[in-house]
Each structure stands twice: as structure tokens, then as C-alpha cells.
């Protein structure tokens, strides 16, 4: 994106956030709550304490990775809706390996677990990818279906053959060696060392999408596959590659959850994390920088929203409504700005024409 466009886009996002929060305020007023108090609590809930800040950043990191996973596939023209399943398999693969390798040096074991998570997620994304490029099977359908398959398969493993013998654990796999776990960066928060990996991956994906020849080829493939093929680009292979990268990132997100928080695979390892990220990516129009910013915003809103519910007795459903409205306004941002732009340019030309007439 060119610099000027980027600025315009950020401004438009800001306007839509403000508009959305205004509507949210009206709803709070209508239901007998003080909107100012609500928003202050939301802000405090997201940033006021170290712990809150840590949780916000952790949430943002997850959203950022899953959002980038959506974007990298979208760049090559594939809509990966299957990140949730890829995430589950990544979590499962790394959790099982993390338990099996207990006692080994973390410097060897953790990278192996990372690879396992990426392989599991990537391979699981490869299946709908191949179906798409070789047989023209719509990836939206296959990825949605494969989500269900993966989640129930993992659930079966965690409650059946791979269920832990540890006492007091009703469901889940054996816990991974504590030495492998990511340390917390902020005490009692969800923020762990995985943040560093998140940053590395984010920079890598940004570079891939915006600066590399591969990203360029992916873009052309996504925009006009026939043109890409005509230009000599191996568009099928690139589409597949982008899908595998997308799946590998999702697998990593699953691994971060296990090695950062849960110690083991549990059935609730993700709460639709991928779909939240997908939403972020779509609102940011698959732009990596936009995804980073949007993740921070939505991370704050998620964590702050929970605090608002606890402290202001604003019911959680209202928080969801406000969030939805904000998302709605942001999604409508594109349409709104073009509308405004057209208006302005029309008025301008009308004015110049009038001036011309007078002259």
C-alpha cells in the first residue's frame, strides 16, 4: 500500500472506531448504564494494571497470528476457514511430543515441538489446498468440514487413547515437561515468551507478503490466477504454499496455548481464536500492518470488555453487542470512505467548473 493510502486508511479506521463507540454509548444509555463509566472501565480493564496489559498483549498476539494466517492464504486467493482445526492439531501434536520428550534438553525438545505443531497444522491445510488446486473443490466448504473433523478427533484422543493418567484431570493429554513451558513475561498474566516468536513470525509474514518475490507472485495468483499462470508463475504451487504456511501458523498458535498456559492438550484449547483472527484480517483488508494494529485494538476490547462486565455490571451480552457494532462499522469502513471521497471530489469539480464559468 502506498504511504498516502495507508494514512487515509488509518484515518478511516479511526473514524469508524469513534462512530462505533458512539453507537455503543447510545445503547448503554438506552439500557440505563453510564457510557463514560463503561468505557473508562473497559480501558482500565485492558491497560490499567500490568496483568491487564499482559493479557491484552497475549490476546493481541493470538489474534495477530491467526489474522496473518488468514491473510497469507488470502493473498494467493484462498479463503482458509479451517484455521481452527489446524490449530487443534498443532496443539495436539506438540502436546503429545512435549510429553514424550520429557527429560530432554529444552533447547532440542522445544524446537522439535514447534516443528511438530507447524507440520501438523501445515499438513492439515495442505489437504484442502490440494483439493482446491488440483480438483477445483471449493476450499471454504472443505476447510469448514475439516475443522469439525479435527476438533472431534482431538477431543476423542484427549478423552480416549491419549487421556492422561494424572490424578484430578478428567480430560486432556499428559502434561508436557515443565522445563519446556514458556515462562511468563508478566506474572499472573497470559503473556509468555511466545511473544518473541510471535514477533519474529509477524515480521517474517509481513516481509513475505509485502517485500518478497514470492509474495508478489502470490498476490498476482490471488488477483488473477490465469494471468499469473500466463506470466510463468507456478500459481498452483504458490497457492498450496500459502495454504501450508497459513496452516503452520495456526498449528503454532495451538502450540503456544499448550506450552504457555495449559501444559497439556485440553478440549477447550481454543475458543474460536481463529475465527476472531479471521475477522481481524478481513477488517484490516488482509494488510499485515493493519492486522497488527487491529489485533491490538481487538485484544484490548476483548480483555477490557470482560472487565467492564465484571465491574460495571454491564451484562456480557451488551458487551458482545457493542463489539459487534464496532466490527460492523469497521467492516463498513471501506464503503463509507469511498462514498465520502466521491462526494468530496464531485463537489470539488463542481466548484472548479463553476469558477470556470464565471471566469
Amino acid at each position: 500500500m502506498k504511504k498516502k493510502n495507508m494514512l487515509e486508511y488509518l484515518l478511516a479506521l479511526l473514524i469508524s472506531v469513534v462512530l462505533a463507540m458512539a453507537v455503543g454509548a447510545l445503547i448503554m444509555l438506552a439500557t440505563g448504564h453510564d457510557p463514560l463509566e463503561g468505557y473508562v472501565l473497559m480501558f482500565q480493564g485492558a491497560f490499567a494494571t500490568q496483568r491487564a496489559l499482559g493479557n491484552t498483549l497475549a490476546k493481541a498476539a493470538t489474534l495477530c497470528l491467526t489474522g496473518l494466517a488468514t491473510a497469507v492464504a488470502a493473498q494467493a486467493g484462498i479463503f482458509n476457514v479451517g484455521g481452527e482445526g489446524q490449530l487443534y492439531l498443532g496443539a495436539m501434536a506438540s502436546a503429545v511430543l512435549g510429553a514424550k520428550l520429557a527429560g530432554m534438553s529444552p533447547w532440542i525438545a522445544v524446537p522439535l515441538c514447534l516443528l511438530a505443531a507447524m507440520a501438523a497444522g501445515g499438513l492439515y491445510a495442505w489437504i484442502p489446498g490440494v483439493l482446491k488446486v488440483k480438483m477445483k473443490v471449493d476450499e471454504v466448504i472443505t476447510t469448514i468440514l475439516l475443522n469439525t473433523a479435527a476438533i472431534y478427533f482431538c477431543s476423542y484422543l484427549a478423552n480416549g487413547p491419549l487421556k492422561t493418567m494424572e490424578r484430578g484431570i478428567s480430560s486432556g493429554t499428559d502434561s508436557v515437561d515443565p522445563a519446556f513451558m514458556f515462562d511468563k513475561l508478566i506474572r499472573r498474566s497470559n503473556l509468555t515468551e511466545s511473544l518473541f516468536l510471535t514477533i519474529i513470525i509477524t515480521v517474517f509474514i509481513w516481509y513475505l507478503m509485502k517485500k518478497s518475490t514470492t509474495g508478489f507472485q502470490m498476490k498476482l495468483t490471488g488477483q488473477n490466477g490465469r494471468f499469473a499462470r500466463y506470466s510463468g508463475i507456478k500459481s498452483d504451487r504458490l497457492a498450496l504454499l500459502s495454504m501450508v504456511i497459513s496452516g503452520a501458523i495456526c498449528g503454532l498458535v495451538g502450540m503456544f496455548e499448550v506450552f504457555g498456559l495449559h501444559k497439556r492438550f485440553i478440549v477447550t484449547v481454543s475458543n474460536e481464536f481463529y475465527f476472531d483472527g479471521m475477522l481481524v484480517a478481513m477488517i484490516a483488508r488482509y494488510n499485515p500492518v493493519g492486522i497488527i494494529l487491529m489485533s491490538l485494538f481487538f485484544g484490548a476490547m476483548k480483555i477490557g470488555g470482560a472487565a467492564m462486565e465484571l465491574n460495571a455490571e454491564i451484562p456480557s451480552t451488551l458487551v458482545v453487542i457493542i463489539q459487534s457494532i464496532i466490527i460492523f462499522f469497521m467492516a463498513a469502513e471501506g464503503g463509507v470512505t469511498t462514498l465520502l471521497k466521491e462526494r468530496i471530489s464531485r463537489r470539488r469539480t463542481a466548484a472548479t467548473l463553476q469558477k470556470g464559468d464565471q471566469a
Partner: protein
Amino acid sequence: MSENIVSFRHVSMQFPGVLANDDVSFDIRKGEVFALVGENGAGKSTLMNILYGMNTPTGGQVIIKGKTVERFDPSQAIAMGVGMVHQHFMLVPSFTVAQNVTLGREPRKWGFVSDLKKANAIVDGLVEEYGLTVNTRDRVQDISVGLQQRVEILKTLHRGADILILDEPTAVLTPQETEELFSVIRRIVREKHMTIIIITHKLYEVMAISDRVGVMRSGKLVGVENTCDVNERILASMMVGRDVLLGELDRHDPEVMDNDVAVTLDHIQVTDDRGLPAIRDISLELHRGEILGIAGIEGNGQSQLIEAITAMRPLRGGDIRIGGVSIRKMTPGQVRALGVAHVPEERLKTGVSAPADVTDNLIAGREKEKRFSLFRTHMKRKAVRQYAEELFEQYDIRGAGVDVPVGSLSGGNMQKVVVAREFSFNTPVLMISQPTRGVDIGAMEAIHQFIIDKRNAGCAILLISADLDELFRLSDRLMTIYEGRITGEFTPSTIEKTEISYYMTGGSKEAQA
């Protein structure tokens, strides 16, 4: 003197970054054929889209039959008697002619069931009245392009149009179909007092059909003349603002005289998208330093011919060798690596990525070259941009710069982007399809010279065009294609266009003898 039926008063149209119409004022008289000519991007289509209500002008007024247009909307324009036939037809292929004509205004039975019988009768009546012969019961998918155009015209007549806008009506027609269209136009003007506005690039058509002609150049109206007072040369220079000398190409003996065979086609068979045979059996040899023109009516396998040679479409039989290497199992990328560049027939579908900017489109396919990338990985954006700007200059592409999406350029400039990219590969073999379709005279002249330069430098060029003039002008050798077979081979200097038409429509040497 006949009255003015349409008047443009200081009409301006500002698009983001482009002033498409700049203070245009003129009148169109009732019962005349008015030709509107100009280069690509001169603003002809924009102006007609305003008349048809598709665009709202940013300034000025349009007066139709004495009434100033208040709201620009096609349904409003139709109500005022304006009809438009677009370059790309808007028909439902699986519907019959009558169904298409009455679409949206179907006669009804019992209030809600469409009455096909009545529709047929109405359309038969229209056919009779206006002499636009077409079988109203045929499905649109089964009839020729020329007949489909008649269906479009019938559609506007059914809606009560008496001002008919035809946007590049002959672009898709054979010479014979063009002649038929013109006789239809003459008849409905004479007998029905209709007003026809025809947008075109082809100046001899202006001379043949129009009463008056308006010339546009970069958004402005250059002048309106009585057709009988001007000639093609005058019009051409009005259009481009300078004298254009068509027909004087710098053709000399190619630098390579060894007459090497560059491409060999050996009994190839190719199917179309539906799996039906498109090329039944074609063998030919393309030599270095020659332009081999393929003449044929659209849909006779010429598109598939070039797609097969560039590996965009798989071979079903036979073999193609480029520089002695079989390309049977190759990808388009591998064929390019053998030294084949390709100007495809459909620029929007294949030739460009419309949302990508001009820069990206100009370097697509060479992003991994050393000058544009570090270790084939990191794109050197500065070098890329600089190179794009050079090509932009060199090929005289006109638009708001290299940063705008290619989709925002006019058709002719989009084509220049394609030509610039493909010719800059400097390959020994060029596959060129419809290089100047929808391109203005200035750009056409330039593209023709680029092609001849390539030939002079020893390139082997296969040229496919629906424009016979173009084929005659450029080709060293001509072949006619019909139903997936080559029906004849000629030297352009020794054959007449009418003769070629005969072979294009399935005639054969034996039958004629």
C-alpha cells in the same frame, strides 16, 4: 432543417484523476447517423454512458427532445427513448431471442406467468417492422455474434427507443456482417426516422455510414463535420492532432536470413473449454524473420491455436516443437523460458491483473531476474519502479502514472502495457493475438511498428487478428483457418480481401475450382 433531438451543453465528467469529458457541447439531429470517433480514452464511451444515464456528469446539461435530463439513470433514459447496445452484449445465452428481447418487460398471462407465445408474436412483429431478420425461437447461445447484435438492437426497439447508441458495433463482426448491419442502420433511419449514434475507431466505416461525424480528443470535442466534407485522412489527423500516415511501415529484410524454423506444429489437436474439438488437425512451420498471419472468423480455433503453443491449453494430439524442443508436457512458464512471449487475446482476463498497479503488471514474470531481486527473494522495489517508468515512457502509455491500477487505464493503454511487457522480454518467438482490438489509431500505428521492428530483428511471429486490414498490412504469409483446420495459404500481395473471406467461411480451393 431537422430539429435537434439530443443536445450536450458544456458537459464535463471528472473521474478520480481523469477528466474524461471536458466542456463538451454539440447537437445531434433527428433522423441522422452520427458517428463519434476518437482515440481510446478520448471520452466517447463516457459521453454516451452519460446520455444513457449510466454516469452522472459533474458539470453541464444534457437535453433530450427538448427536456433537460434531471436524473441520470438508465431507466430514465430508456423512458426518454434512448437505447444503447454495448460492446459486450448483455444477453442470457440459454434464453431464446424472443425471451431476451422481452426480458424485463415480458407479456404476461393471468397477471404473472410470462406468455411466451405473445412474446414471440411481438418480437416477430418487430423483426418484420424493422427488417432485422433473425429467428425469434433460436436460443441466443446458438446464433452468431452478428445475430446476437441484432437481438440487442431489437431489445432497445422493444423498449421504444428512437435514439440508438451503438458502441463499437463492428468490432466483433465479419466484413459481411458489418455490411448487413449497415444496411439495417440505413433502413431504420430512412423508414423509421430513428437517430443513430455510432461509436467507432474505423474511419472507413464513418465514411460509409454516417451523415455527420464528431471527433473527440482527450475529453474535448475537436469538431463536428458533415461526413461528405471530410475524408479519412482529415479525420485521423483531427483525432490524434497530427497527420497519421497509415501504410508506411518500416519493413526491410530481416537481419537473420537463414530462414530457420522456429516453431513446428505437427498435426495438433486441441479442445475448447467444453471439451469439444477446436483444432482438428493443424500442421505448420513458423520461420524466423516472418510474420505469419492467421485469418479466420472468431471461434474457428485460432484462440486455441495460440493457447496451445504457449502451453496455456493442453494438447490432445500431435506435437509442438519450439527450437526443436517438444512442449507437450510443459507449463506456460517453461515455454516462456524457451523464448516465447505472448500477447493474449483477452487482455483483462489473461493479459493483466486489473487490480494490480501498472508497475506490477509491467514486470510480472521477471520479478526473479537479477536486476529486480536479491537472491531471487527480495524485490528491489526501486529498480522495479524505475524500469516500469522507462517502459511507460518508451511505449507511450498514457495514464495517471505507474502507481494506478491497470484496470483504471483505457483499453488502448492497457494493451500498451501488455505489449510493453511482452516485447521487452526480447524473445525470438512472439505469439500475438488481436494486438489492436479496441485500440485507437495512434496506438495502433505504434503497435504495428513495434511488431514490424520485431520481425525485422529476426523474430518469428504468429499473428492472429479479426482485423483483415491489420493482417494484410503486417503479414508476410497468410493462412485461413476454418473449423479448426487451415483452409489455405496465401501471400498478402497476391490475394484480395474478398477472396480471403471466402476461405475464412469454409470455402476451399477444390470447391472453387
